[in-house]
């Protein structure tokens, strides 16, 4: 187990294309860090540089305090789960999991290998498949074999390269919690690459958002959601994605396409002398005004609008509200949408209302929004003008506390099971983790 430090990591390919442009990142011992971004942002390249399958053009990579730039993958003692699992098709599940152990010639006697493999297999519920070949396994089982191969050798860190992208939705959800549970119990430093922001939000202690090879923001999921640094991060995090609408500043009022709202002192100073800004509104922060109590309605701003289409999902209701955009920001928003792998079809606001709402296709609705949750961005640079660094820092600090607490709880539960279970099997993984909670 070890910390991983990236210092100004640069990757240029042979044709001069810069895939990663100077990324610096501190990953603490035992931490679960997610690298996330749209396709082509360099996240997989970064992971492959950490594991040693890709040369580092410039910068320093340290694992456990030692510079490993020039070390071969085998000398970095990391375990990796590949997107397509990369199982050895000619070996049984048992031999696949035992493969890393057998490579360390003479390090483990046969009985030790058998014990370790069976232990890993029990953890991942693969015991009855040990003698089968990968070709005869389902997608989820293959995925678990790949994880078994990673956990069996007590590596310094786990690296995951989009491990769930080949699974169907239900299995993905199950494996996601499984990975989270496993990481907590083993307390192993983990770097996880994904383009799926749900995985990023649910799994990570901290999430690093990448865009075109540049690090945008590294923060806890909550800080990313509430205090994004720029348009890109705000648009990437959240599902359905944040709505961006042009906001024209007129005196002490901010004019949105569908509503006018007063600007308070704080917002006023933050906006400065800009006449046009981009306003970000989270779909889930909208409410159907008719369902709210009277005094709550007064605390925010309400507006009338025409609903174009609705989707009732049981737990909530999505309503689509078309609006006319401002020509000065249209191009900017279109670029952003394309960068986030969107289609840029039409300008519309998505709102997520309570499923009790009676708003339906074509109906007129009165919606409510809390102005305190409004985000305002500079239309040129995309910088979030409403971001509060102190709040963001505090959220991250709380998150770090939570992480340590949950790590300790997981270790304590483990220890308890070890005590009363008596089964030597259950707690053995921690063999290599003498001080798991120091991260």
């Amino acid at each position, binding site marked *: 187990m070890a910390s991983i430090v990236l210092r100004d990591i640069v990757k240029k390919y042979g044709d001069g294309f810069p895939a990663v442009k100077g990324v610096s990142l501190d990953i603490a011992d035992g931490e679960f860090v997610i690298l996330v971004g749209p396709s082509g942002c360099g996240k997989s390249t970064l992971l492959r540089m950490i594991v040693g*399958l890709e040369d580092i053009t410039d910068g320093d990579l340290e694992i456990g305090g030692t510079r490993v730039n020039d070390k071969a*993958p085998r000398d970095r003692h990391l375990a990796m789960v*590949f997107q397509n699992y*990369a199982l050895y098709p*000619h070996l049984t599940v048992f031999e696949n999991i035992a493969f890393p152990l057998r490579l360390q010639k003479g390090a483990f006697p046969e009985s030790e290998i058998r014990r370790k493999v069976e232990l890993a297999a029990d953890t991942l519920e693969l015991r009855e498949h040990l003698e089968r070949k990968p070709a005869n396994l389902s997608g989820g089982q293959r995925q678990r074999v790949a994880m078994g191969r990673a956990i069996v050798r007590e590596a310094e860190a786990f690296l995951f390269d989009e491990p769930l992208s080949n699974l169907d939705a239900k299995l993905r959800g199950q494996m996601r919690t499984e990975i989270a549970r496993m990481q907590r119990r083993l307390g192993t430093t983990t770097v996880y690459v994904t383009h799926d922001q749900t995985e990023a939000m649910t799994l990570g202690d901290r999430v690093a958002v990448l865009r075109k090879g540049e690090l945008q923001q590294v923060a806890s999921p909550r800080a990313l959601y509430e205090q994004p640094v720029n348009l890109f991060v705000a648009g990437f995090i959240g599902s359905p994605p944040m709505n961006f609408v042009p906001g024209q500043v007129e005196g002490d009022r901010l004019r949105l396409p569908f509503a006018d709202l007063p600007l308070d002192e704080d917002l006023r100073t933050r906006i400065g002398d800009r006449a046009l800004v981009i306003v970000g509104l989270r779909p889930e922060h909208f409410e159907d005004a008719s369902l709210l109590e009277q005094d709550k309605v007064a605390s925010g701003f309400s507006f009338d609008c025409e609903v174009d289409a609705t989707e009732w999902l049981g737990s909530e209701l999505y309503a689509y509200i078309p609006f006319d955009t401002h020509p000065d920001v249209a191009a900017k928003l279109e670029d952003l949408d394309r960068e986030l792998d969107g289609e840029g079809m039409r300008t519309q606001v998505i709102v997520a209302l309570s499923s009790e709402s009676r708003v339906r296709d074509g109906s007129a609705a009165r919606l409510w929004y809390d102005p305190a949750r409004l985000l305002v961005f500079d239309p040129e640079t995309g910088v979030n003008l409403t971001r509060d660094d102190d709040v963001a820092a505090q959220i991250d600090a709380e998150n770090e506390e939570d992480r340590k607490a949950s790590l300790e709880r997981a270790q304590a539960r483990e220890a308890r099971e070890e005590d009363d279970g008596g089964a030597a099997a259950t707690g053995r993984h921690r063999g290599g983790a003498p001080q798991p909670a120091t991260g």
Partner: protein
Amino acid sequence: MGLTTKQKVWWAVITVVVLVYALFPVAAIAATSFKIPSELDNGRFLPGTWSLINYEQILVGDAQSLFLSSLRNSIGISLIATAIAAVLATLAAYAIARLDFPGKRLILTTALAVSIFPVISIVTPLFNLWRTIGLYDTWPGLIIPYLSLTLPISIWILTAFFRQIPWELEQAAQVDGATTWQAFRKAIVPLAAPGVFTTALIAFFIAWNDFVYGISLTSTEAARPVPAALAFFTGASQFEEPTGSISAAAVVVTIPVVVLVLLFQRQIVAGLTQGAVKG
């Protein structure tokens, strides 16, 4: 599948016709090989008296020296040519499938050009050249031309095969703690072995069946392979046709090919279609 009865009947008829067309000569040779010399011209398909006299003649009798030495030449030359072709083709195909280097397409195109080049047109120049430099009527004198036959197709088949191997396995092995060599040996070789084996088999058949080089570039028992040697069989006396012994020899040299094909049918078909579809 949705074949009507009429279609099924037609397919059956076509299959039978093709089988008879392809196998009748083989059956005729096999039947002839069991005839005694006096029955050769009797115009009947099956021998009146079944006899092994022809086999005796080529294996222990008069024709023994001619046949056994050529059999030894055939086996030796084909095996060596196959081994060299398999090794060279494996390395070449590995490089073509794995690495990006200038001239990659050129190599593949050249290989294709060589394999469609008519053999007969280079036999005469080769004959003169070999005589000048002393390769005429030697094993290397046949192995080298055989390589020109077997290498191109081996490279094509193996390149197609190697392209299908997921190279992430090699990387996974390296991350798991293997050296480059270990990763190659433990993760890639087991997957590549069936392809190399199939290719070697196909290369062996090509070398084994060759006649044009065999007859043109040899003159004595020193290097003459079986297909060429068959033409030099003589009857027991000058009034007898050597047809019986030629048939027997043909059967003997066909047996290993048939056995190998039957044993590895599935792999060979897979190997051939891979080369055909993916190449």
